[in-house]
């Protein structure tokens, strides 16, 4: 009887264990598609043989992080911060986005707000949501006297397109100037965004319409306020998100060619025009390229796996500026030898093909904000 009792208990426990194990086994076989991203500071630092130079400023979930020597440091709370850019004196311009409006702030490199540059909230007594404004993608000129940004003024009822505005660094937007003409063509496209001040003008992305009604992006250049400017890229390339190299002689951009792809493309830049395009990354959904301050490469955001959140990548400049091949030795004439008689040349050996340079994945489990520019300090 006792043995039967123990057998029954054993079988009951076994059934319970097997049942629970089956449940847990199935639960564990779920795909990881909905796993929440890790906070940058919580992610395990990945040992890399390569460490990015300088300090990279990057945002996730509304918080600003610095990234240097392979480690992230959280500089602000998760409070709507995005799109940092460097000022000439070493601080940051950054956007603070609320539900109905966004403003530009100056912040030091430790995340302390120094001052607010715009006041885009609607007047307190206004009930019209259209009385609020957006400011995005702020950039300061090299002399530190002017701030460029995308700003949604003027507006016409439902038609809200952003324009490229400049304002004095120590002034207000009421003293600002509109550099682009977002309503010159057919409107309702989102307008002109992401300005980059360059010597002699400003580069930005203009969103415009194709004849079939679809909307495409074009890099644009204008040299004075109120002018229409000129296109730097063709409509078929559908380029956006420009970034200027430290030497201001190359531009990196994202081109989609009208498809659900996003290639990293670079081109020489000078005097308000760009040269031959060179595709650097064609097999990832690349966003927000930023040149290393020492010219050693380009950082960008992209999903590591298809349809996953965006991670930080770096591609060395060797990928797009390969070293020149070593000079081919020429046969020399042997002194005293028979002039004019070619010496037997050694059998030609093919030049070694350099291994293709691959991008380095710097993070693996984050959810970086791909609509936010990267700022990279030396």
């Amino acid at each position: 009887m006792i043995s039967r009792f123990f057998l029954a208990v054993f079988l009951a426990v076994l059934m319970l264990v097997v049942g629970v194990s089956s449940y847990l086994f199935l639960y564990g076989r779920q795909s990881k598609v909905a796993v929440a991203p890790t906070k940058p500071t919580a992610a395990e630092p990945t040992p890399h043989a390569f460490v990015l130079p300088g300090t990279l400023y990057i945002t996730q979930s509304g918080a600003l992080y610095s990234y240097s020597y392979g480690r992230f440091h959280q500089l602000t709370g998760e409070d709507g911060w995005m799109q940092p850019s460097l000022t000439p004196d070493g601080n940051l311009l950054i956007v603070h986005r609320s539900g109905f409006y966004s403003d530009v702030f100056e912040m030091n490199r430790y995340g302390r707000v120094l001052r607010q540059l715009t006041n885009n909230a609607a007047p307190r007594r206004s009930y019209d949501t259209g009385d609020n404004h957006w400011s995005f993608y702020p950039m300061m000129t090299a002399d530190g006297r002017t701030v460029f940004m995308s700003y949604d003024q003027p507006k016409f009822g439902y038609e809200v397109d952003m324009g490229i505005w400049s304002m004095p660094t120590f002034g207000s937007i009421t003293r600002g100037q509109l550099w682009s003409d977002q309503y010159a063509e057919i409107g309702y496209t989102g307008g002109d965004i992401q300005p980059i001040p360059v010597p002699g003008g400003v580069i930005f992305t203009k969103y415009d319409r194709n004849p079939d009604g679809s909307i495409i992006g074009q890099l644009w250049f204008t040299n004075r306020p109120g002018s229409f400017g000129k296109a730097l890229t063709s409509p078929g390339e559908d380029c956006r998100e420009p970034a200027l190299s430290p030497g201001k002689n190359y531009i990196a951009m994202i081109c989609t060619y009208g498809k659900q792809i996003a290639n990293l493309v670079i081109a020489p830049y000078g005097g308000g025009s760009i040269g031959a395009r060179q595709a650097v990354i064609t097999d990832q959904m690349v966003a927000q390229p930023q040149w290393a301050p020492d010219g050693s490469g380009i950082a960008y955001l992209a999903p590591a796996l298809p349809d996953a959140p965006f991670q930080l990548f770096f591609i060395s400049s060797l990928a797009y500026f390969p070293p020149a091949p070593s000079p081919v030795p020429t046969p020399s004439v042997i002194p005293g030898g028979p002039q004019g008689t070619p010496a037997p040349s050694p059998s030609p050996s093919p030049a070694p093909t350099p291994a293709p340079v691959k991008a380095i994945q710097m993070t693996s489990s984050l959810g970086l904000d791909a609509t936010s520019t990267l700022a990279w300090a030396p």
Partner: protein
Amino acid sequence: MALAAASGSLSYFLPAAYLAFQSTGQNVVVPSPSPTSLLFTPTPSPSPVVQSGAFTVLLLGSDDDSKFSGDHVLTQSMILVRVIPSTKQVIMLSIPRDLWVPLSTGGSYKIDGAYSYGGAGAAIATVQENFGVHVNYYIWVGLLGLIRVIDAIGGIDVVTSNPVLDDYYPLDINTKSPYGYSRIAVLAGPQHLDGVHALQYVRSRHNDLQSDFGRSRRQQQVLLAIRQKAKQLSPEDIPTLANAIGGEIKTNISIGQVGAMLPLAASFDNPDAIQQIVLASPYTRGGAPNGSLYGNWGLILPLVHRWFP
């Protein structure tokens, strides 16, 4: 042992099965063609090709916030999808919600009212009668449903075509005042969208010159992104998905058919085999009652029958 394992598995899938049975396999009564449909006799297809295993799904998307009562909602989005397994082709045709048509329930109205007057059956019958197609299945999803689906699959990657700015975006989800407005700014470029922001991207139409047509393009874009992400799902994900979606989706596709379609969806991997159609000008023109659109049926029907034989 086997019985214990089976019971463990059953307890894993049972909640999902219960929810799934509530949402799927919906009975739909499609009324017989109304006399008015005779006015819209479809042009015979020049060479109807027999497409083995092909089927047509009508996707319906509705504002189902508290402004509306019960199931009497407008279908802000109506997309006909033709799936041809043999050639791995997908054709998506967005029907303008403002298209002025005879409804299967009688009278003429914007086509988005068909569901409001007679549910899924009326919406299907109205599309069938006016476009001369046969609809095999329908899937209806509400606002929260779209948000939950996208969140449940962990978000989607999209290259948003342009900044989508709307100063008067409906503030009608999770609010006591469904008639309020919000502002949205979905920035341009490659990005990972969660459910709320994906809904903003596909729902906003105020800041779009093409209004509903521009929105239709964005809806098709997001649908393709969802399909792409769904390829990574496994059967073990079904309980979590079903729990997340709850009753926010209705369809007449049975659970068995859903199971059969999952591997089918995963096998469609050529983006060039996906045809996207929007019935903008010259297929439609303004001037119809209540700001709606007249269809140029002489152009629409040959186009539709080319892709939806």
